[in-house]
């Protein structure tokens, strides 16, 4: 029981008449890395939005860290220990790297309530350390995010997640817009998280990446979970077959 970090039962989300997510039963164990795959509109992002409190579910139950939860907003999910990197990155363009990394949880030198003095040096050093740990290279920490490439911005967002993650990390297509070298960096970050035993949900379209990084693959199709596959017991062709609907799995097995 306590081995399970996240569990959903009958998770359902309707947008008006559209059944974007239907009766999703999902489990994630401690230290486990799971990939969510599926075609566009299969319900992957919808599923993540329900778990992270960005949207309120239509019905179903969610347990996180042994407790039944119903997050009122992304902040509640974050306070509970779920960190997410979304496709739209949630960075403040006009702030520099340390300010973005510590956005909303700034280090304080001298506490004066809302007028507290910032520990700029401390945040800068912590940022350097965090970027070193995740092997992210940024030309100049002091320049604003606006001037950076998509890959660099993504790296900042991921470094933030990795720095503060407490219990569960979710990445929604973290390498979709990245070049080869930047993708390798992000994958290295994910491996580091695996070594540290931090559970992770990865949404990705990249088959090589998924087989490289995760323990288990969950396939979504038309709003439903259609397959739950251990990496060793499947291959790329098999997964593609589930994604396209050429093959279906017994749902009783999926709940395992």
């Amino acid at each position: 029981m306590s081995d399970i970090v996240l569990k959903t039962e009958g998770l359902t989300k309707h947008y008006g008449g559209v059944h974007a997510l239907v009766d999703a039963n999902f489990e994630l164990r401690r230290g486990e890395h799971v990939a969510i795959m599926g075609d566009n509109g299969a319900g992957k992002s919808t599923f993540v939005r329900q778990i992270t409190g960005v949207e309120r579910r239509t019905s179903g139950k969610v347990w996180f860290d042994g407790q039944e939860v119903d997050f009122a907003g992304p902040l509640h999910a974050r306070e509970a220990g779920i960190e997410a990197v979304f496709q739209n990155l949630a960075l403040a363009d006009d702030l520099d790297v340390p300010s973005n990394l510590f956005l909303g949880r700034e280090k304080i030198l001298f506490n004066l309530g809302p007028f507290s003095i910032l520990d700029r040096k401390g945040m800068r050093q912590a940022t350097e350390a965090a970027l070193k740990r995740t092997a992210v290279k940024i030309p100049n920490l002091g320049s604003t995010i606006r001037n950076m490439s998509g890959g660099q911005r993504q790296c900042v967002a991921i470094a933030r997640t990795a720095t503060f993650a407490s219990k569960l990390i979710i990445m929604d297509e973290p390498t979709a817009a990245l070049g080869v070298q930047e993708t390798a960096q992000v994958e290295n970050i994910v491996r580091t998280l695996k070594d540290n035993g931090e559970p992770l949900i990865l949404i990705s379209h990249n088959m090589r990446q998924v087989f490289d990084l995760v323990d288990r693959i969950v396939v979504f199709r038309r709003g439903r979970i259609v397959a739950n596959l251990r990496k060793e017991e499947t291959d790329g062709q098999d997964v593609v077959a589930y994604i396209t609907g050429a093959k279906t799995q017994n749902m009783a097995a999926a709940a395992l």
Partner: protein
Amino acid sequence: MAQTTFGVGGLTYDHSKRHMPQELNVLIALVLIIAAFELLGRILIGDSFLLNTRDNVDTIFNQARLQIIILQVSIVGIIAIGITQVIISGGIDLSAGSVVGATAMIAMSFAQVAMVNGNPNPKAVFLEQGWVDLPVIVPVIVGLGCGLLAGLINGSLIAYTKIPPFIATLGMMVTARGVAKWWTKGEPISFPTESFAGIGKGLMPVVIFLALAVLFHLMLKYTLYGKRCYAIGSNEEAARMSGINVERHKVLVYSIAGLLAAVAAIVLSSKNLTAQAGMGVMYELDAIAMAVIGGVSLSGGRGSIIGTVLGSLIFGVIISGFTFLKLDAYYQEMVKGAIIVGAVVLDVWRQRRRSSRG
């Protein structure tokens, strides 16, 4: 060597290029405008704009003109400081001028002397109640309270009813002007106590303006408050998702803007030794223009107090430059309008250039 090579894929990064602050451009503009007036002065009226041309005074600069320039912008400059932090956090405040009017009237009515030339003060609002010859702290606290209240209402409306800042503060602009007129049924209030008159005496407005500018520069740059202003103005959704209490911060920002409008009102009424219901008309637009000239972006997230101070100096130089060239006061107003629109056009250009660079 200015060039350093590191970063993703061995990116070349030139430190010397990126570190040129935007305030430098504003400073260059200020110098160019002064040079232009200097040149026009020599050609058109054969006099120097800023340099001393009289023999009886032993200074390099024309100190009288320098004082006028900074004195005339310092009161609106105090408002501009408040408006700068509002605009940086993604809002706008159109109510500042009217809040100045209302605050000046209310504060002044608590700052009156009992006797004028041996007779009871004919203009005293609270003579019957005996609220005359009060210590200076009373009108100051009352005035600051008025500004704070106006700002609290602005901020709460914007944060919690989610109406656009433009509408909320437009409402306050009309309401506060109404309060200013209603307070004495349109009568001006005069004869302040000596201690109250001391607040805005001589170069005091300049001292107060610069002290507040330094304070708010430090606040925006080194405190949580400033960081949140920039974060909210830059990407409100990201700020909210990061756990910043955006609503509470907005109330704080507008309250502080209201407080600064009240400071301006106290200094202005003290300097003029009188308060009138029409005080501060259009001050908010002048203040917004100072901020935008100084590089504060109307779309939020960018700008600084240093920029606004430089912007206010540009504003003052242009106005007194027109007086110096002996141009009619009507031209001043027309040009002022053009400056305000021109500054916003500049801001839009800057943003377009920035986005086209990707």
